[in-house]
């Protein structure tokens, strides 16, 4: 092969052509910037969302650590801790599960020993002070100090009353340090020193296997060196130490059984493939790709058409196809080199602005603490996708330019297919509007392409808006609470009902019932967990807690008829005769939080189960009080925030309250749940009354749908903002595209217009012709958008909306209606101003440019 050094000349031509195309360059850079902005923003947001979800799950899991071994003995810890698979292991031991200070009643507080690794895993970063060293030193969080009314000053002494294994203790501690509590953390810890732990060691023996008392049991968090195949690694680690766990299918009652689980945070990352975040990201990436492709392709295609003679000349002069391709690619690269960095920067800032809004809309309410970090991979990814989009967009124009035949190019008048075209059997084509139509028909492919790409932008904009507009606050809130109001003790709402000594007073319920706004309501009752427990003689109920016989512990509730009647029936029939006769029970299936029932439990309607009633009031050993057989008559879908004591884990089973009371000595009212009479006003008034009521009764509280609605009222706006930003950019791309199409279509025909004017077309007639062309573009685009917008809306958007529980599909073409006038204005303005520009140039000059 003969090679010659022609690179300099190609570069030179590429440079010159690049400079000669200022308008195209500007529009192309705008398009590239916008495309890159979209990619960067979507990646930043996606990444931050994943990260926050993970952090949140870590926090929920009580700390970092891929796996958790719960409620184990020190012996297990000693045997496991030196396993070679382990990278880091954190040791924690619960000392006291309750701090008996009245001022802490609203806060869930616990006393722990945690080693340094554990403190690090938990993310407690001391604002001031040091880790506890002497026996008396403790560290805790700012909220707890505030609760106790103690100054955040190192060395302050703190007197605490607390309970360890049902024995009350009082001790004087010294504050060694504190960290700032996260806004929404549900547990507040007091961390004691190793010395204190050693001193109290004999008072907190491991008794979890006997009485399920957590105090004295060890929880360790482990990070393996390899973060893959966690489940297999747990098995191997435990096997090597002589233990078994659930993942090995081991018997839970075996003496060497250990409760181990993979942290939800890592389960989440492990199951990324079916995550909606990832699906959303892929969908959005494709969408951006298509949008970017259409505009960049359009710009280059039009530009190549414009320069086709030039390419033909180059070819005549001996430029090869490859060189022509290079020529175009070099120009594209240069535009990318300018556009992509700008897009990355703008996109990053846009992402930073939008992430907090996005977080607010999720259940991950730590929005305040969202920390956005600059992650190179986001930029690399966005830049990569942008470049690929540009590369692919340019591929067809590149081919067109390289394949140009020199002769054809010289005669090229931007009219396709010269062969076999029929003669035009008309006599009035000279009318302005007919000429406009005929002009658009000159290159039908291009006209259609422009209309389609504009239409697509409008359709995308419309779809994004329709989707976002479908956010259903009601459905969202119903997921948490499906009745207007729920009243209970303050501790109930702090998820500490099971430890509460305080009961909801009848006067509170009577107060509510006596209000004129009150509609219908019912009580949910159960027992004090530590006093009476229920176990079902069945293998069909999942439960982490089992009695000596291996029967799973259940949460048995008595519910008033109103509640039973309004439960969301999944299977079976609510046969009140059977229920009232004390023969039937209802199984509650928890709503997983996404509108779907959690994995159904194996027990079937019609099955009979024996329930063992135990009394544990006085001693450690269980004392069976009764055994009754019930028939499962129905399965219902329950909201945990409505139909439980908000402290769950066991299967929730419901019977009528009067039946419940027959068996139970010490019933406790969990909550009173009610609806108001119809009308927004009633709810509003009840809300105000309750707010006033709990103000003077700090031990009581309430929750309401309205509270949630208020809390989430911003969520819809968030969706609208994010959707509008994306839809807006897409719409803007469409507008830029439209502008470019109009602009180039006028500029490329300068010579032709001069000729028309030389034979007597006035400026006004020229303007009318071009405006007519623009209007045809605009109207075609609008009609197409309406057609496709409707089709896409009724198919894809509808399906997607239906698949997400808090979205309700609401058909709208409003965004297209909003875009339409913009298209029409551009269709009028661009030709108008371009004509004004043309008028300044003399016809002679323009005739020569032909």
């Amino acid at each position, binding site marked *: 092969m003969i090679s010659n050094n022609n690179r300099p000349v190609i570069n030179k031509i590429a440079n010159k052509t690049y400079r000669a195309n200022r308008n195209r360059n500007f529009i192309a850079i705008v398009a590239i910037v916008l495309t890159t902005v979209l990619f960067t923003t979507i990646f930043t947001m996606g990444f931050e969302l994943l990260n926050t979800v993970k952090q949140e799950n870590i926090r929920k899991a009580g700390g970092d650590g891929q796996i958790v071994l719960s409620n184990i003995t020190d012996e297990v810890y000693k045997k496991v801790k030196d396993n070679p698979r382990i990278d880091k292991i954190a040791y924690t031991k619960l000392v006291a599960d309750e701090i008996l200070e009245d001022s802490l009643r609203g806060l869930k507080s616990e006393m722990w020993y945690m080693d340094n690794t554990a403190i690090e895993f938990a993310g407690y970063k001391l604002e001031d002070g040091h880790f506890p060293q002497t026996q008396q030193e403790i560290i805790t969080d700012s909220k707890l100090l505030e609760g106790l009314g103690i100054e955040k000053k190192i060395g302050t002494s703190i007197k605490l009353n607390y309970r360890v294994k049902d024995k009350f203790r009082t001790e004087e501690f010294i504050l060694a340090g504190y960290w700032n509590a996260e806004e929404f953390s549900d547990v507040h810890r007091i961390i004691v020193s190793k010395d204190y732990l050693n001193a109290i060691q004999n008072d907190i023996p491991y008794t979890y296997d006997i009485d399920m008392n957590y105090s004295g049991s060890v929880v360790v968090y482990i990070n393996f060196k390899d973060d893959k195949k966690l489940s297999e690694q747990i098995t191997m680690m435990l096997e090597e130490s002589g233990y078994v766990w659930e993942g090995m299918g081991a018997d839970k009652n075996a003496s060497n059984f250990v409760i181990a689980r993979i942290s939800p945070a890592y389960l989440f990352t492990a199951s990324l493939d079916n995550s909606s975040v990832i699906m959303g990201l892929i969908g959005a990436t494709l969408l951006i790709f298509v949008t970017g492709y259409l505009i960049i392709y359009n710009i280059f295609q039009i530009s190549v058409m414009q320069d086709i003679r030039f390419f033909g000349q180059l070819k005549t002069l001996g430029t090869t196809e490859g060189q022509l391709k290079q020529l175009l690619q070099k120009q594209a690269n240069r535009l990318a080199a300018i556009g992509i960095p700008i897009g990355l920067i703008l996109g990053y800032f846009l992402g930073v602005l939008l992430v907090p809004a996005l977080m607010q809309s999720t259940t991950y309410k730590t929005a305040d603490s969202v920390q956005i970090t600059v992650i190179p991979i986001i930029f690399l990814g966005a830049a990569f996708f942008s470049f690929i989009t540009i590369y692919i967009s340019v591929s067809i124009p590149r081919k067109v330019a390289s394949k140009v035949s020199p002769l054809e190019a010289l005669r090229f008048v931007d009219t396709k297919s010269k062969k076999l075209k029929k003669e*035009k059997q008309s006599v009035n084509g*000279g009318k302005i509007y007919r000429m406009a139509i005929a*002009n658009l028909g000159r290159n039908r492919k291009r006209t259609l392409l422009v209309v389609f790409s504009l239409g697509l932008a409008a359709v995308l904009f419309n779809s994004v808006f329709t989707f976002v507009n479908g956010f259903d606050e009601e459905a969202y809130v119903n997921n948490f609470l499906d009745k207007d109001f729920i009243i209970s003790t303050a501790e109930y709402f702090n998820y500490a009902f099971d430890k509460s000594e305080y009961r909801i007073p009848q006067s509170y319920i009577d107060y509510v019932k006596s209000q004129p706004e009150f509609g219908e309501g019912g009580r949910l009752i159960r027992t004090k967990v530590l006093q009476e427990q229920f176990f079902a003689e069945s293998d069909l109920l999942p439960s982490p807690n089992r009695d000596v016989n291996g029967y799973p512990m259940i949460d048995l509730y008595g519910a008033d008829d109103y509640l039973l009647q309004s439960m969301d029936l999944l299977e079976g029939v609510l046969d009140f005769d059977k229920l009232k006769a004390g023969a039937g029970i209802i199984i509650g299936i928890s709503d997983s939080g996404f509108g779907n029932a959690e994995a159904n439990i194996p027990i079937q309607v019609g099955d009979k189960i024996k329930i063992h009633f135990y009394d544990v009031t006085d001693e450690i050993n269980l004392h069976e009080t009764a055994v009754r057989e019930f028939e499962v008559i129905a399965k219902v879908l329950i909201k945990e925030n409505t139909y439980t004591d908000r402290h769950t884990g066991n299967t929730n089973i419901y019977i009528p309250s009067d039946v419940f009371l027959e068996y139970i000595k010490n019933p406790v009212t969990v909550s009173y749940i009610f609806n108001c009479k119809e009308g927004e006003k009633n709810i509003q008034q009840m809300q105000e009354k309750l707010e006033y009521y709990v103000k003077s009764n700090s031990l009581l509280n309430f929750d309401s749908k309205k509270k949630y609605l208020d809390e989430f009222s911003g969520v819809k706006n968030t969706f609208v903002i994010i959707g509008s930003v994306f839809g807006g950019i897409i719409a803007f791309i469409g507008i830029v595209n439209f502008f470019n199409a109009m602009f180039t279509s006028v500029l490329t025909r300068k010579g032709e217009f001069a000729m028309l004017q*030389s034979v007597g*077309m006035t400026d006004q007639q020229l303007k009318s012709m071009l405006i007519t062309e623009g209007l045809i573009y605009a109207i075609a685009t609008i009609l197409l958008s309406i057609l496709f917008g409707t089709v896409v809306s009724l198919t894809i958007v509808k399906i997607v909306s239906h698949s997400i529980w808090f979205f309700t599909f609401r058909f709208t073409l409003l965004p297209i209606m909003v875009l339409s006038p913009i298209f029409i204005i551009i269709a009028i303005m661009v030709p108008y101003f371009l004509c004004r520009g043309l008028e300044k140039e003399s016809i*002679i000059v323009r*005739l020569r440019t*032909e």
Partner: protein
Amino acid sequence: MEDILVTRELKKYYGEGNTLTKALDGIDLTVKKGEFVAVVGASGSGKSTLLHMLGGLDNPTSGKVIVEGSELGTLNRDELTVFRRRQIGFIFQNYNLVPVLNSYENIILPLELDGRQPNQEYITKILKIMHLSEKKFALPSQLSGGQQQRVAIARALASNPSIILADEPTGNLDSNTSQEVLGLMVESVHILNQTLIMITHNMQIAQMADRIIYIEDGKIVEH
């Protein structure tokens, strides 16, 4: 015969100082109705500039162009355009047909732009003279170069203008076709009693004219 076109001291200067170019430097020209005038001159002599001035496509630096009694300098942009489509028929070297219109539509375009109904009889006559009856509905891309130029000539004739201005009308055609097209043009001008001012390089073609004007450095010179 009446004077259909008169120019007085017509000047067109470009630039100033050292770069001053005198494209036209005092042209006094009178053309009578029905006359066929050939304008001959070297490249850059100013003959195209003269033609543009006569057709109102360009404004003179000084001097006057009077067509059928009206002075072009007094007309505004739109009036000039209207003047052009009514009084002037242009024929360009590169035909300048509208690609989306067929022959017939191209021919009547100036009439339509003027909002006039074409006189069918007259148009048919022109089509016949120009041997275009068969190609009435053909698009420019379906015509040969000679045919396209014949359509352009027919277009110039269609509005029955005062003057037809032709700028090297056969410049893009081979010599046989040139002869044929030119023959038709001269014939039609005579039949329809049109005035024709034509720029050409070709002395053989120029010989067919009633009168030949030589231009050198922006001035009319005697030969």
